[in-house]
């Protein structure tokens, strides 16, 4: 027969007062309450003042524009469709050209360094994409050689007039600039756009910010950890 539960045990000597909650349970409950409060406060604070990005943050929910072009993949030039966030990948996207003697190689170099500093599991979730603003001279093969020389990533050729539309969608501008007695250059805006794994534009860095590799890396890490 199962023992009677104390509640049905009657009549009898008054049961001893239920033992006080052990101290550790009380402490645990108190801690849990504090943690809950802190969590709520943190959540509110996050909603009110977002992560202090080093770069310039986009309003929440800003969708990145998809585009199509051609890029070398698996050793061959193939159609390249950029669908923001596809495959759970975040993307650092910038617009440049391979005849660019100073800003473009350094952008690639800084972005690769920032990515290399990330924990390995985050590193593999960030791709670097260069879209050429000089499709007349930049072939997919040339872009690929360029991008891979400085690290890993995709170099995408989008012919006009599609390129113009993609550029406008990102707020990118470019124009041909003649150099006396030499091949032309292209003047262009120099931002790098970070798109998260859900296809949202999160932050942009101006070129002049990229040399602060550790701070760019912190922005990358935050976006990769909070898609």
């Amino acid at each position, binding site marked *: 027969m199962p023992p009677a539960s104390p509640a049905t045990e009657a009549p009898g000597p008054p049961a001893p007062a239920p033992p006080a909650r052990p101290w550790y349970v009380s402490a645990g409950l108190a801690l849990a309450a504090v943690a809950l409060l802190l969590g709520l406060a943190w959540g509110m604070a996050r909603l009110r003042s977002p992560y202090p990005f080093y770069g310039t943050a986009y309003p929440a929910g800003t969708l990145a524009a998809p585009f199509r072009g051609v890029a070398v993949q698996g050793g061959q030039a193939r159609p390249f469709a950029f669908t923001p966030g596809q495959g759970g990948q975040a993307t650092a996207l910038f617009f440049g050209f*391979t*005849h*660019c*003697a*100073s*800003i473009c*190689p*350094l952008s690639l*170099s800084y972005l690769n*360094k920032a990515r*290399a*500093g*990330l*924990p390995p599991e985050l590193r593999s979730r960030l791709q670097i994409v260069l879209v050429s603003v000089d499709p007349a001279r930049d072939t997919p093969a*040339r872009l690929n*050689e*360029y991008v*891979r*020389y*400085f690290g890993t990533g995709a170099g995408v050729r989008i012919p006009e007039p599609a390129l113009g539309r993609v550029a406008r969608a990102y707020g990118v*501008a*470019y*124009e041909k*600039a003649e*150099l*006396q*007695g*030499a*091949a032309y*250059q*292209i*003047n*262009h*805006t*120099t931002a790098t756009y970070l798109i998260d794994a859900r296809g949202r534009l999160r932050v942009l860095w101006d*070129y*002049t910010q990229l040399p602060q*590799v*550790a701070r760019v*890396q912190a922005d990358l890490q935050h976006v990769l950890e909070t898609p």
Partner: protein
Amino acid sequence: MPQFPTPHPARLALLAAVLALLPGCRPAPQAGAARPALTVQAARVVAVPPGVKDTSVFGTLRNPGARPLRLTGVQTGAADHAMLMVTRTDARGLTGMAVTGALTVPAGGELVLSDTGDHIMLMGLRAPLREGETVALTLTDDAGGTHTLQAPVVKP
């Protein structure tokens, strides 16, 4: 564990060695007291892949002299054209570079050649550059002086 890029010791050593060996500058053949030489620090050519024929030269030029030094030309055997450049960003945010007639190293001061500002551009590289190799460049000033600098090819 995050790794922050640190300059490779070997590369620094190489750079230091190259700088130590710098022949510096030849004063312009002119009458009067010998002019103090222009000195160069951290001179480097940006390494680019073999198919790319254009690149930049960066570094810090110091002018210990009492008069500003106006550099009006640059030459190298490594490229078809070497040009003095300025970088500009216009009101629309377009950044680009333009050829300039002169770059001035202030008296007792320095001129930083960098990706975001003044620099030297090499167009039409005659042979692919290899990392670690050294490119010789000769700057000319408006008094006819020449200043030779040795810039190692460094991957940024």
